[in-house]
C-alpha cells in the first residue's frame, strides 16, 4: 500500500476506539493497578480527564456563542464601513430626512414620539446618527430612491 492511499485519520480513530473499548471493559481494580504501576496519581488523572471533558462540553455548548461573537465583529466592521455613506451636510440630511418622513409617515411618528421632541429640535448628532442607521438597516430610501444593503 502506498503512503498516499493510507488513511491515517481512520487508523488513529481505530486505535483510539480499541483503547477505549479495552478501558471500558477493564475492571476498576485493573485500571487502578495500571495507574499505580505507571506512577500516576489516580485523583490527579481523574481531575485532568474531568477538566478535559468539561472543556470539550463547554466548547460544544458555546458553538453558537462563538459564532455570534465572530458575527458581531463582522457586523460592526460593516457598520463602520457603511457609515461613510452619509456624506451630506446636516442641512442636506434634514431635507432628506423630511422627505423620508413624508414618504414613510409611520417612521416619523415612531421616531419623534420616542425622541419626545419635534423634528426641528432634533440635534445634528441625532439627525446624522438616525439617517446613518436607517440606511444601514436598509429602511432608508434617499431622495434618489437608492436603498442601501442590509448589514
Amino acid at each position: 500500500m502506498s503512503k498516499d492511499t493510507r488513511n491515517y485519520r481512520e487508523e488513529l480513530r481505530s486505535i483510539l476506539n480499541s483503547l477505549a473499548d479495552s478501558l471500558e471493559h477493564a475492571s476498576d481494580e485493573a485500571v487502578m493497578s495500571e495507574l499505580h504501576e505507571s506512577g500516576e496519581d489516580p485523583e490527579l488523572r481523574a481531575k485532568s480527564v474531568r477538566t478535559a471533558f468539561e472543556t470539550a462540553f463547554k466548547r460544544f455548548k458555546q458553538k453558537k456563542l462563538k459564532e455570534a461573537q465572530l458575527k458581531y465583529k463582522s457586523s460592526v466592521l460593516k457598520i463602520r464601513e457603511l457609515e461613510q455613506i452619509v456624506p451630506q451636510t446636516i442641512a442636506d440630511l434634514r431635507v432628506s430626512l423630511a422627505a423620508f418622513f413624508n414618504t414613510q409617515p409611520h417612521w416619523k411618528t415612531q421616531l419623534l414620539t420616542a425622541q419626545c421632541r419635534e423634528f426641528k429640535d432634533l440635534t445634528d448628532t441625532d439627525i446624522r446618527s438616525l439617517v446613518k442607521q436607517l440606511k444601514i438597516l436598509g429602511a432608508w430610501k434617499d431622495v434618489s430612491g437608492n436603498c442601501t444593503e442590509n448589514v
Partner: protein
Amino acid sequence: MTKTSSRNYAYELLDELGITEPADIDLEAIAEHCGATIVYEKLEGCEARIIGYGDRAIITVSSDSISPRQRFSGGHELGHWVYDKGKNVFNCKEAALTSEWFEFNPEQRANRFSADLLLPEFMFIPRAKDMPITFYTVERLTDDFHTSLTATAIRLVQFGSFPAMLVWHNKNGLKRFVRGPAVSESLWPKKSLESDTMAIEVLNESGKKPGPIDVSASAWFDHPEAHRYVIREDTRRITSDLVLTILWWKDERQLLDLMDEEGEEE
C-alpha cells in the same frame, strides 16, 4: 423559542448559547445572536436607542456612560427587540432605566429582561449564598457580573440569603423601595429620613464614615414596636440627588415577632 416571562426567555437564550458563568455573559454576542448589533456612540437626550427594520436592529448605547450602565442599557434595548420587534424605534431615557422596575409596561419588561439576562438567578443565588446583605457584597457581585450597583443591589435583596429591603431617597423624601421576599408586607419605610440614619448623613454629605451601621428599626419604620429592634443600615450615594440604602435584618427577631402577630390576627 416562545416568549413567556422575561426570566424564561432570558434563561432560554443563555442556555441556547451554553452560558453558565457570569464571565461568559457576552452581551454583544447575545444581541447579535438575536439579530441586533450593539454600537457605542455619543447620544443626546437618551441612554440608549434601538432602531429595528425587518429582522435586523441596531442598538446604540451612549459612549459616555460607564460600562456597567452600558451593559444594562444594552440589555434593556435587547429586551425591547425580543418583545416589541416590529415597532421600529425606542429611545430610553435614564429615568426609565432607573425607575420603571415596578410598573407593568414595556420599559419595566425590558428592565426585567436585562436583569434576568445579566444577573440570572441560577448564577446569582450560589454566589450570594450566606453573604452579608451590604454594599460590600454588592460590590463583589458587581465585579463578578459586571453590572451596576443598583441592579445588583436589587438582585441581592431579592435573591440573597437573608431578609432585607432596598430604599431610595432624595432630598424630597422616599422615592421607592423593594422588599425582599422574607420581609413582612406590613413594614413600610418612613417617607422622610430621620436624623439618626446614616442615609441622611450621606444625602447631606456630612462626611460621616461609610457604614454599615446598626440603627434602631424605629429610625426607619413607624411600627409601634419598632424601637425594640435593631437593623443594619448601609447607604451609598448613586446620583447627585439620590441615595440608596440597604436595610438588613441581621437579627431577624422583628420579622419573626411580626409573623407571630400576623398569625394571631388571622
